[in-house]
């Protein structure tokens, strides 16, 4: 089987992320120390999740317009992939929090937003599994995901900016300029985002293919 160019790119970028992520110089900051390298693994998980979920949402909307089963399959599998990356983001963040803030979990707008988003997507998958008829399942879950995603975006994007918190990018400081300003980190961080996102798309693509084959098999 021939690998498509973007899959090769994903492998290269992730190899680069892991090697460069652990070996390059990072700014020495109090409290953070070497754990700052988690930026390449924790923050990128959330970027990937948001992007993959956005694709899921777009395919949900597309389904409502087209009623094509194919769109629904993409929406479902990307949502599942997004949940996996969300859980990974939660675990990496939790470990990071333990070593910098001293607790596995702190009561913080951004952390709670992340947990709420995961809850929404678990509910989405639960809703899917509870409806037998495939056409009805696709329609109702698309409506739910559009509704839920829009409410969540407000939560994750706007609410944390209005409250002070430990988490970078809050309480008025835009983005994560506090420690991302360092250029040596940028040259690893941006490729890392692209790499992880491509990996997620790859996983989703394989899952969509399996899903379609299974449907075909059932028809026979």
């Amino acid at each position, binding site marked *: 089987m021939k690998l498509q160019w973007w899959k090769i790119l994903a492998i290269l970028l992730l190899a680069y992320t892991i090697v460069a992520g652990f070996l390059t110089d990072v700014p020495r900051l109090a409290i953070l120390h070497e754990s700052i390298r988690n930026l390449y693994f924790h923050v990128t998980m959330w970027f990937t999740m948001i992007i993959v979920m956005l694709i899921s949402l777009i395919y949900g909307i597309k389904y*409502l317009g087209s009623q094509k089963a194919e769109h629904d399959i993409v929406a479902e599998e990307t949502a599942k992939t997004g949940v996996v990356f969300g859980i990974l983001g939660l675990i990496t963040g939790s470990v990071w929090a333990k070593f910098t803030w001293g607790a596995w979990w702190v009561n913080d707008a951004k952390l709670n937003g992340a947990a709420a988003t995961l809850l929404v997507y678990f509910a989405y998958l639960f*809703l899917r599994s509870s409806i037998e008829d495939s056409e009805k399942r696709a329609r109702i879950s698309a409506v739910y995901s559009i509704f839920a995603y829009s409410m969540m975006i407000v939560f994750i994007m706007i609410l944390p900016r209005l409250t002070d918190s430990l988490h970078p990018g809050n309480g008025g400081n835009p983005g994560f300029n506090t420690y991302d300003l360092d250029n040596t980190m940028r040259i690893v961080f941006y490729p890392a985002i692209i790499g992880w996102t491509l990996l997620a798309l790859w996983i989703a693509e394989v899952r969509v293919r399996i899903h379609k084959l299974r449907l075909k098999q059932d028809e026979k």
Partner: protein
Amino acid sequence: MHLVGHHFRQEWKQRHAFFGLVLYCAATIFIAYLAFRNSIDTVTWNALFWIIMLFASVNALAKSFLSESRGRQLYYYSLVSAPVFYLSKLFYGIILMLVLSIISLIIFSALNGTPSWNFTSYFISMITGITGLAITLTMISAITSRSGSHTSMMAILGFPVLIPMLIIIIKASAKAMDGFSIAAMPKDFILLLSLMVMATALSYILFPYIWRD
């Protein structure tokens, strides 16, 4: 508008259901009162009230779609367009919840005592908050009823979606308990109102897709 009136007549015919809801709230509040014994501070007072209102609204609004029989839904379907039907259910849900919340607030403060709050401010944030809950849960109720599941599904689908709204509501009403006036917390209200507008607009657009079967 006729339809809203119709929903209320329908409700009045089954008034035992409404009194059931009032009883549900009263019993929950009484249990909370017994559990806390007068050791309740303002933060707990506020949080407790909203948690009770959250469960009450899930129970109350589950009825707005789940209780309709299939035949009657088909009848409505042939009679009015989906957006009109949605709006009638929405108004009905909001008014039902407002009545229920006012009754609950009276019982709650009678038992647990009234804190030194800014009453007008608290009352306004309660009315706004309850309306927000009703808007979101009406849509969730429609989704749940179409998925053919029971009330428990409504909580599973509804709670995560409600988290953003609830956090703002609890924050705003906590400020009201500390004596702030509405004018002193514009940020919370703008955010809350924009969430409500967004939820209404989304439901209005999306409702036709779940309405036809």
